[in-house]
């Protein structure tokens, strides 16, 4: 219990992913294999060890410590977390036990069926031998409130670093259910399974951005164009009647899209499709923010499924009937796609129309229309291109621009309950110069996070507008840029909108104002 509790507290304290990964790797290496499978079920938030509701635990703690209820009520708002408040009310811990995690988990499991007074005795005894941090984790565990909230990607990376295993062949183990009571860690992680092979995706090839004029690509007739939408780039794999969905960052995201997991979707044998999963409403592809919030969910409700159904827009077929198509040119693969498509469920799968012509003109028209149908770019592929060979495909992005900017001002709504608008800025030497004010299109979770943060990080107030410390970096997209003498930045952005929250980018690493000035120069020419 000691090691997992320290891990819980330290993971919570570390702000960057590398550090979290180091902590996990160190933990995996130090922990006995008897404890490791239990640890995995805790780290994956899969262990349900609820013995009592928090309300009961509160009653028992107050009785155990002789604390009046009103005193608990004084403390709780300061600590915020009820399980932690109860842990802190306990007498200072003196003797702590080295009892291993699996023993604790077995004890807890055994007590699930105990009478209430047996549970209470067990819990009181446990408190007596646990340290401060262990009591916090223990209280959360037995009330069903322990959450590590770690991403699959982080856990996979840590496991693969610690035990020297390849991510694609172990990912499925994290998704499947397992029982630490009847299984061993060695079995779970190392025992070869058919899925190790079946789940394996093909490498995701990065697509180059088109930076040349179209004509430089040669003859239009040698190219095929296709719209791409903002969504999740995936490989949809069906092998031996099981479906695996991989995101292009090597995360196995099958469970996020249950609507795409029915083996009946495709009646044929083994197949690997590549494409984009998008959320749709009445035939319109929804903004990326919608699917981003689905990716964060642990479980997908029926309501989400019916309100914002997911569909996959197929771009490519990489394997058919167990045979890799990497040696076949794109024209052949596209023909195969056309043949397979009618056998797929057309409510769930869409095959993008292609843009093909002897001249570049129609490509340009399609490019111009892209925004009106919410497409994000056009994928250009040479007809002869092989999946694995050089002749590259290109991503032809829309004529929009984007910069990574720092949040500078936050404007509250009149009732102060919400955020109206956000002003973003870029660096000019050590100063932040405002460049755009955008409407608040934040999802609720992020909005709440920012509101809380603003409360503690306001530098100055001007009516409803607060200036804040440089911290949040967002992508700001806009359609055009022009000179403006009236503005401090010397330029104005047309139709700026709030793009993605760039969590990984530090405020210092946001763009400089000079980046916009260069865009302006190029554009005027």
């Amino acid at each position: 219990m000691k090691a997992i509790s320290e891990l819980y507290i330290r993971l919570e304290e570390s702000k960057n992913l590398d550090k979290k990964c180091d902590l996990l790797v160190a933990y995996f290496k130090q922990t006995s294999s008897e404890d490791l499978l239990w640890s995995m079920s805790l780290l994956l938030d899969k262990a349900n060890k609820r013995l009592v509701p928090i309300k009961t635990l509160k009653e028992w703690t107050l009785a155990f410590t002789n604390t009046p209820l009103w005193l608990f009520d004084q403390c709780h708002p300061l600590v915020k977390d009820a399980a932690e408040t109860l842990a802190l009310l306990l007498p200072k811990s003196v003797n702590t036990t080295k009892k291993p995690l699996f023993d604790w988990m077995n004890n807890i499991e055994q007590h699930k069926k105990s009478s209430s007074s047996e549970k209470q005795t067990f819990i009181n005894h446990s408190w007596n031998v646990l340290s401060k941090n262990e009591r916090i984790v223990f209280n959360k565990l037995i009330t069903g409130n322990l959450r590590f909230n770690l991403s699959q990607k982080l856990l996979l990376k840590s496991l693969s670093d610690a035990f020297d295993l390849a991510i694609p062949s172990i990912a499925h183990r994290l998704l499947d259910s397992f029982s630490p009571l009847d299984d061993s860690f060695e079995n779970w992680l190392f025992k070869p399974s058919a899925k190790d092979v079946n789940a394996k995706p093909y490498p995701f090839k990065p697509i180059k951005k088109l930076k040349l004029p179209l004509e430089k690509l040669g003859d239009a007739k040698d190219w095929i164009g296709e719209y791409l939408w903002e969504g999740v780039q995936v490989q949809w794999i069906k092998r031996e009647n099981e479906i695996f969905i991989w995101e292009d960052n090597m995360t196995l995201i099958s469970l996020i899209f249950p609507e795409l997991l029915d083996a009946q979707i495709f009646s044929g044998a083994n197949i690997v499709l590549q494409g984009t999963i998008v959320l749709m409403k009445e035939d319109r592809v929804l903004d990326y923010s919608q699917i981003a919030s689905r990716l964060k969910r642990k479980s997908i409700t029926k309501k989400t499924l019916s309100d914002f159904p997911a569909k996959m827009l197929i771009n490519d077929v990489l394997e058919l009937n167990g045979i890799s198509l990497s040696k076949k040119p794109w024209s052949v693969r596209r023909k195969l796609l056309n043949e397979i498509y009618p056998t797929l469920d057309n409510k769930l799968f869409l095959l993008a129309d292609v843009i093909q012509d002897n001249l570049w003109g129609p490509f340009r028209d399609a490019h111009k229309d892209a925004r009106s149908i919410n497409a994000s770019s056009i994928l250009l592929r040479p007809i002869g291109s092989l999946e694995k060979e050089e002749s590259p495909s290109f991503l032809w992005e829309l004529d929009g621009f984007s910069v990574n900017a720092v949040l500078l001002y936050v404007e509250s709504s009149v009732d102060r309950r919400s955020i109206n608008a956000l002003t973003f800025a870029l660096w000019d030497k050590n100063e932040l110069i405002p460049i755009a004010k955008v409407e608040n299109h934040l999802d609720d979770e992020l909005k709440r996070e920012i509101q809380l943060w603003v409360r503690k990080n306001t530098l100055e107030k001007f009516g409803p507008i607060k200036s804040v410390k440089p911290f949040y970096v967002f992508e700001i997209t806009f359609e055009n840029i022009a000179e403006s003498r009236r503005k401090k930045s010397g330029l104005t952005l047309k139709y700026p909108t709030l793009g993605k929250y760039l969590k990984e980018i530090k405020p210092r690493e946001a763009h400089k104002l000079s980046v916009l000035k260069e865009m302006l120069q190029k554009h005027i020419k």
Partner: protein
Amino acid sequence: MELLSNTKNGLYCEMADVYIDPWRKVQKALITHGHSDHAKPGHSQYMCHKNSVSILKHRIGKNIKVRGYNFGESISINGVKFSFHPAGHIIGSAQVRVEYKGEIWVVTGDYKLGDDEVCTPFEPIKCHTLITESTFGLPIYKWESPGNVFNQINQWWAENKANKQTSVIYAYSLGKAQRILKHLSKDIDKIYAHASIYNTNKTLIEHGIYDTHCEELSPKTADLNGALIITPQSSTALKNINQTHSIKTAMASGWMATRNTRKNRLIDKGFVLSDHADWDDLLTAIASSEAERVIVTHGYQEAFARYLSELGLKAETYKTAFEGESTLK
């Protein structure tokens, strides 16, 4: 008339016409210790423990009129006997004992139990009425042994050093800073203190009441990899360091006892280390004073006084200047 009363200027002994830790300018002020919420500028005459004299001069002004006394030394003013007794909070910190015709009051000022090896440890003083602080007067505040905390601090530094990072600890320049410096591992070869801490240390060392030397952090200090810096949080010196070095920040304070406060400060690590008594020690101190009546001030006084009343003690509260002067008569 009570021996001591709470007035708009602060705690007052009318019989002797002196104040204890007054927050407005007065003639005669008895000062428990040098922290700015207790030792205000502008009084005509200061009286304190002798180790607080140099601190008061350093923080308030060279030319203030101040007189220092030994612990236990009796000061008689208009028939009222005053004396200072160790409070164990910071160097020079004292409780004030007030006696008149056999009636004894004790004002604790800020205090902690246990020996921090920097200042004289707290001594319980028997009295009829105890005026106690209650900064951490809630049962969620229970300190672990300081030895453990110093081990954690030293370990944290070693980890940062291994990663070629600079460790920065935020601490009050008077009290916490000296205590941490004193207990840092001998393995830490590069220790720097922000000017405000360095200058405080210099004064204390010159007066023979502190003995741990360290270097001053200056803009010229070039190699900070693996170093440890101790600084008040308001310091701007860090801005420059942050640009050239990878730093890890920590705060050492009793408030670090909850995950929530650790999360809300922009720091990497929180160490639970306080110069105030925790819940258990407040109760111990009150019990050992054998006071019949307890007046709670400076912190969670309402909750703490209510708890004491429920234990059967005669308990009430005083508000300090910071919490609502308007409620005072």
